[in-house]
């Protein structure tokens, strides 16, 4: 279930450990929760897409349809009090971390009731109440924030961890290198997760990543690096759970490369001229949701009626979030002046 990245020697034999990671295997309840979470992400984004094209959502949005296995594999391996640093493609990460659909939908609508009061929008959503420390419009930025979150965990003496997500394209920026190195030096409780959907906007992974493997870069820092099938939520979960176990236990950071497929355009409106249609068709055949569903059905944990109930509940939640967003007020224009500083008693 866990694939190895091409040349990924892990200096402390952690591959063997990761092979054992299925001892973190989720029980029936968690499996069902993971299934529901993926569907929740999917339906949220599909509806957001429709609403975007209907002109209800300003700005631009980057959807993760097809990539839910990564978001939920990560989210399910984290506790509510763990932290997560996200990307420009972060709706799924927030939902998987347990964030409120209402606050999220309202935010991307630009409403005053949004999780960021309408100041952030899709690329800057944040929900501190579930440890989601922000999407980011600047690629790879989370990679350098992460060691500091890890340091704070260490200095406060809690057993939290922080996961940081970034794309395959983002991994080519300097902060990846600096953040991984610093986290490794500090043995900080950080889990680096590269969401490799093989494209950075119109640029193919092979054309931006010398050597081809991001997981393989871990060896250079003396930390475990594994590549997993990101369309298999359980494989992602297993790898992340093992990395989390290491991190909580004081064994420091890990790097996971989760290979997945972006079904839609880079952002809504992207005509995807650079990409053969067959690629997405192939991706759809690896649908992480169908895959977990088949697994659940095979294990007799889910039948059609149960699945329908799950789908219905999610539908209701998403529609509720939409209704909430639609009926919420826009911010007052002058609220643009609020929230810059905690402390600003000056007239200047």
């Amino acid at each position, binding site marked *: 279930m866990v694939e190895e990245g091409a040349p990924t020697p892990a200096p402390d034999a952690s591959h063997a450990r990761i092979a054992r990671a299925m001892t973190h295997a989720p029980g029936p309840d968690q499996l069902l929760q993971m299934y529901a979470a993926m569907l929740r992400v999917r339906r949220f984004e599909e509806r957001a897409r429709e609403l975007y094209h209907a002109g209800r959502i*300003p*700005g*631009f949005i980057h959807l993760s349809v097809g990539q839910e296995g990564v978001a939920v594999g990560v989210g399910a391996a984290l506790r509510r009090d763990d932290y997560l640093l996200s990307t420009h493609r972060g709706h799924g990460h927030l939902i998987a971390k347990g964030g409120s659909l209402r606050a999220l939908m309202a935010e991307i609508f*630009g*409403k*005053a009731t*949004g999780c*960021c009061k*309408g*100041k*952030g*929008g*899709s*690329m*800057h959503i944040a929900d501190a109440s579930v440890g989601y420390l922000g999407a*980011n*419009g*600047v*690629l*790879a930025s989370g990679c350098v924030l992460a060691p500091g979150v890890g340091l704070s965990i260490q200095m406060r003496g809690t057993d939290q961890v922080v996961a940081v997500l970034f794309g395959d*394209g*983002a991994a*080519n*920026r*300097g902060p990846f290198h600096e953040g991984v190195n610093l986290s490794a030096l500090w043995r900080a409780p950080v889990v680096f997760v590269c969401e490799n959907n093989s494209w*950075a*906007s*119109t*640029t193919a992974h092979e*054309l*931006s*990543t010398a050597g081809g493997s991001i997981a393989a870069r871990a060896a250079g820092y003396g930390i475990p690096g594994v590549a997993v099938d990101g369309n298999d939520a359980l494989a992602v979960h297993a790898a992340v759970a093992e990395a989390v176990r290491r991190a909580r236990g004081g064994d420091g950071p890990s790097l996971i490369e989760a290979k997945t497929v972006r079904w839609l355009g880079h952002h809504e409106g992207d005509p995807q*001229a*650079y990409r053969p249609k067959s690629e997405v068709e192939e991706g759809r055949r690896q649908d992480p949701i169908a895959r977990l569903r088949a697994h659940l059905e095979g294990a007799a944990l889910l039948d059609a009626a149960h699945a329908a109930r799950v789908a219905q509940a999610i539908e209701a939640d998403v529609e509720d979030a939409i209704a909430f967003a639609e009926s919420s007020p*826009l*911010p*007052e*224009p*002058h*609220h*643009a*002046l609020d929230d*810059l500083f905690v402390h600003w008693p000056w007239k200047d």
Partner: protein
Amino acid sequence: MPVMDFGDALNLALKEEMRRDGRVYCIGEDIVLGLPFGVTKGLAEEFGLARVRNAPISEAAIVGSSLGAAMTGLVPVVDMHFADFVTCAMDEVVNQIAKSRYMFGGQIACPLTLRMPYGIGKSAGGHHSNSVEAWFVNTPGLKVCMPSTPADARGLLKTAIRDPDPVLIFEHRALYRVQGEVPAEETLVPLGAADVKRAGTDVTVIATARMVGEALLAAEMLAEEGISAEVVDPRSLVPLDRATLAASVAKTHRVVIAEEGPMRASVGAWLAWVVMEQSFDELDAPIARVAAPDVPIPFSPPMEAFVTAHAGQIVAAARELMK
């Protein structure tokens, strides 16, 4: 004169310069397909992938490599994607590109152009909306220009590419699809030559890039009130055409400076000082400034509109000066 939009005028400039000089190449993220704003569309087809280079997401290396190339005989044109991301290559721009020639006693030249798509609009949010030109105007060793029309865009970009020194050209995102007349023949717009975009006698409005359009709109509105506004577009900030500014102020005795970025330590603040220094005795009123409040750019449309400098503010400021 043919009419074309600002983005196409830039595209034309790139084509003309790449045809003229085989040392010119373009580099940036996703530029082969013309992303993000269409300016590099069709270049790869004509000039090939060696001269139109998609780069990985490595801003420091994109910009830094361009200096390496410029020092050794090429003429790079770098697409910063969004000017906001120049923060990811700040050292390369201000410590390497701006200083190398000087620190090396003139031994090398750095004929490179940084294309900086920038500005507010369409709820792009806090990381894709900023005006960062002030940092580079504050950095000795860089030339900086800011076109406001398709003709200026083409003419300035061509000049920037031919200039033997590093030039930053700030291209406002909201202008890319604005139309205008562009000379049929190849035309350069020099650096250091301001352009009076509208003549007037009562008040001088100094504005660049998107704010020129707002200033012209404001001038229309003011004209209806009987106030004659002159709109001066410096076009390049480094070098700055002080003489044209002085001539205008000598005529109007009142000045509004409009910019899109924030108030503090900005280009507008500096222009205000330039005007005051050279035209103090001509001024009949304090210089007025229009700029953004000192906050990041918010996402939601009502708040974004609130922080977007616009013609109405120029009108109000000019009216106040006429009292």
